[in-house]
């Protein structure tokens, strides 16, 4: 009886450890997904809105549409392991049509444990760009780019491992034109 009891206790401890490990992994994956619904109210103010929600299923669906040429292979490599990509971008006619409070919910999520601010670029004219990375041990489990410009607000949330180098190389390649949306704008007389 005593042996049986000890065996049950050992099994229970082992099962609890496995459960805790799985739970922590699931929690890490969930924490890399940001809640972007707080930004939905800005859609009414924005002159242009981009809203992309690609969950894991849609990632598979999109991958199935990729052909077998070299470009598509590179894209498949890039998105391999990514569980979702979520983009919200708002472009406004005038400056200060959104406030820091509108972004505070996003920042609060990025202050949670696990997220690390990788890069923070500050510019009075062109706004700030912050790059956050969620580490799962030594690997990247998520990426968030928060771009707050005077007339534009963009949040990109990638759930899952992502190669920053390949992602940066994406623009202007694979048949996707380099739109240069972020290139320095020509100065006007008012700015001078």
């Amino acid at each position, binding site marked *: *009886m005593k042996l049986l*009891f000890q065996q049950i*206790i050992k099994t*229970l401890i082992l*099962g609890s450890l496995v*459960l805790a490990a*799985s739970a922590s992994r*699931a929690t890490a994956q969930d924490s890399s997904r940001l809640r972007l619904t707080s930004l939905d109210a800005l859609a009414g103010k924005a*002159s*242009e*809105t*981009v*809203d*992309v*929600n*690609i*969950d894991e299923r*849609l*990632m598979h*669906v*999109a991958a*199935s*549409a*990729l052909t077998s040429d070299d470009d598509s292979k590179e*894209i498949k490599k*890039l*998105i391999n392991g990514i569980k979702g*990509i*979520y*983009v919200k*971008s708002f472009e406004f006619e005038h400056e200060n049509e959104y406030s820091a409070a509108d972004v505070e919910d996003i920042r609060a999520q990025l202050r949670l444990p696990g997220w690390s601010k*990788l*890069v923070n*670029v500050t510019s009075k004219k062109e706004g700030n*760009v912050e*790059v956050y*990375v969620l580490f799962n041990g030594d*690997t*990247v489990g998520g*990426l968030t*780019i928060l*771009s707050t410009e005077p007339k534009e607000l*963009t949040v990109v949330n*990638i759930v899952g*491992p*992502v*190669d*920053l*180098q390949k*992602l*940066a*190389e*994406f*623009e*202007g390649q694979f048949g*996707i034109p380099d*739109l*240069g*949306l*972020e290139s320095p704008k020509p100065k006007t007389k008012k700015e001078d």
Partner: protein
Amino acid sequence: MKDDYLWDKSGEPDPEVQQLEEILGTLRYQPRPLEIPDDLIVQRRRNYFPLLAIAATFVIALLAAGLWYRAASQKSAAPLEAQVEQPAPAPTVQQRPEDKTLATENHGPSPLPRVPPRKTQPANSVAFNGKRHNRASAPVLTAAQEKEAEEAKAQLLMALRVASEKLNLVQRKTQGAGGPNQIRNQHKIG
């Protein structure tokens, strides 16, 4: 008179000693079998701790299994909810008539594809495990699935492009006015 009688009962006994023997002899040990009364109730103290521990183990294991199953079912059902109840919004460009996007001016057709709302799949195409029958079992995509795949691909490319643009902007800001795609010079992560 000898006192041997007191020692080993030899010799002539003393009457007083004999009288004392007879009086005290009634109290001498008399062997007899053990008799247990029928109405005797034996109360044993049972140790319930092992049974309670085993029961608690099973209860905890059941709770853990229930939580595991619930988490797993929620995780697998999430994409299904997004598809059926809240169709994943296609990349939408809400543009006022008087506005002109940079892309439209510079590159002709809008780079942000106007994708019509995705049609929800019929309910009978959804298996109980949250995966679609037709996609899993039928290798040949139907027209609707091909359309959905193309839309998803367009969304994916646009999302990747936006992310790439922002990363390149960061790279340009941090490394001066270098050309695009120089983030390779930074620390590679992932």
